[in-house]
């Protein structure tokens, strides 16, 4: 599904990613861990099409198509979804309008008709309930005045509505208490499917107690320096990242 080859990325004049390789197939869950400043957020942003990052080398393909050539909205419509570390607050735009506009943009791209208003409401209410969110959130401005946990749940709600193929979770566990973490993790687990893949970018192993990865990669100094199974995360938790950087 996703193939990243020798990816190098600059921010300003500084090289942040220094030849990153990663292959993600449908049905897999990958965790990318690493110390602060290793390039984890840069990787999520580059995959989602945020501006301000200069790709200086390498390639990224998504289902065989050149992902880096696509504007951000086309990536989203093709099925790449980024759950933000810091979701933006948008005054005056209701959640329900954003969800509907986004869903219709994705459907149109796939050659489907606009969603029927009643069907949409039924769907969005069901998804909202599954994430233990109050329906009132739908009619509030996007993320405005939401707590950290509510913002992250809202990201998962958008993900559940858009049904992307590749979900990138950028530090989704940051700022969550245990209850919120469980709800978010349940939401993600409910979306697991043989057709869908996940990349979880995280500093801590905590999230991985709730969403069990198939692969764990350690990102340090712009490269993946070690890959393994779920047990690698536990080893990192115990030993920290220092031993990898020395090696």
């Amino acid at each position, binding site marked *: 599904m996703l193939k990243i080859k020798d990816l190098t990325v600059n921010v300003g004049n500084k090289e942040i990613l220094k030849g990153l390789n990663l292959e993600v197939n449908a049905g897999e869950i990958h965790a990318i861990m690493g110390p602060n400043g290793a390039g984890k957020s840069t990787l999520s942003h580059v995959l989602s099409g945020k*501006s301000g990052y200069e790709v200086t080398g390498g390639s990224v393909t998504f289902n065989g198509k050149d992902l880096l050539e696509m504007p951000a*909205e086309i990536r989203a419509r093709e099925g790449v979804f980024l759950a933000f570390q810091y*979701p*933006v607050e948008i005054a005056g735009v209701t959640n329900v309008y*954003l969800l509907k*506009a986004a869903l219709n943009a994705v459907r149109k791209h796939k050659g489907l008709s606009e969603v029927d208003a009643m069907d949409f409401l039924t769907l969005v209410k069901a998804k909202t309930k599954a994430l233990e969110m109050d329906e009132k959130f739908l009619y509030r*401005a996007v993320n405005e005045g939401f707590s950290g946990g509510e913002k992250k749940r809202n990201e998962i709600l958008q993900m559940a509505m858009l049904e992307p193929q590749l979900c990138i979770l950028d530090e989704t566990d940051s700022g969550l208490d245990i209850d919120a973490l469980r709800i978010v993790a349940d939401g993600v687990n409910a979306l697991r499917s043989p057709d869908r893949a996940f990349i979880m970018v995280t500093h801590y192993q905590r999230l991985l107690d709730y969403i069990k990865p198939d692969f764990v990669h350690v990102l340090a100094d712009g490269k993946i320096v070690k890959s393994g199974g779920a047990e690698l995360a536990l080893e990192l938790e115990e030993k920290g990242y220092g031993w990898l950087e020395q090696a």
Partner: protein
Amino acid sequence: MSISWLNDIRQQAKNQFEKTGFPASNLEDWRYTNVSAIAKKEFSVAKFVEDVDFDAVESGSAFHFVFVDGYFREELSNLPEKITICSINDALKNHADLLQSKFNQAIKQTHGFIDFNTANFTDGLFVHIAKNVVLEKPLQIIHIATQEAILPTRHVVILDANAKASLIEMFVSPEKHAYLTNSVAEVFVGENANLTLYKVQQEGENAYHFGGTYVQQADNARFTHHNFALGSLLARSDIVSDLETAAECELNGLYLGSQNQHLDNLTRINHLQPHGISREFYKGILNDQAHGVFQGRILVAENAQNTDSQMNNCNLLLSNEAEIDTKPQLEIYADDVKCAHGVTVGQLDEKSIFYLQSRGIDEVSAKHILTFAFANEMVDKITIPSLRDAVFNLLLTRFPEGAER
């Protein structure tokens, strides 16, 4: 109209206008707005035309009064009972004493547009709402411009004590010709009375517009104004209110300029006595080469202790060539007051645009959504549902992807 008291006032204004003409841009209040193009047009005052080609205006939820080129058309209008409401020309015959006692009294300072109006107004609406009368339906004045001319109208609105009403002023043109609307309203809000006034300016794209509203608020009177400046090539709006003890004044505004539109908004809130409250919030959105002006002044007289006043002006510039001149002023002579003002000028937030794009929404739509949301805050303040929907839809024609119809 050959009534001597009025003739005197009109003659004075005529003399004054002949001396000064329309305001020159060396006057402080006009420094951002050059109106010399209007004088060059050499418009004359519009004539009454017998046959107009309109159907009676539909407005199920309002009483409405139609002015075509500055002349009242009863046959196109829908009039309420129980209150005194008629054209100024009728009021000169039937309510002369009341009209004379109020006429020109709310205007403390004139300029060329006001003088011209006083000297030349063709007609206008006279509204008198008696003590304790609460109007359930809004009154709506509809100005329709069809002639290439100056269309001067003069309205006088009087609410006696404890009366309550809302009034909508619409300015429209079915044509694209040049003309000058010159509309002056004098408003007297009596003790503990409550008036909400909406102005929706959708003049034609080559039109010039001057609209001035001059308000006297008695003790405990409440006046709310919502000002939507959407149309015209060049528009200037004056809102001036004098507040007596514990009066409350709320001014909301939205100016939405594109192409080479010039939209100037001047407001003056004068707290003359203690315990007054004022809230002012104007928002501007300027695209292309449009030029916006906000000149807001709040005056707190020496007497006006315990005044509580806030003024905000937020501007969104959508193009590098768009321009805003914003000048909020507090002029405070009392020592025990709570006054604040704030101004912002900015562009759409890149992070918000990217957030929407990351959800599959294209850049143009994302910008429409964010711009619409910025403007809609002012539309949401409209408390008459049919008017709110109408202004909402007007906004949507400017930013079609901005919201769900």
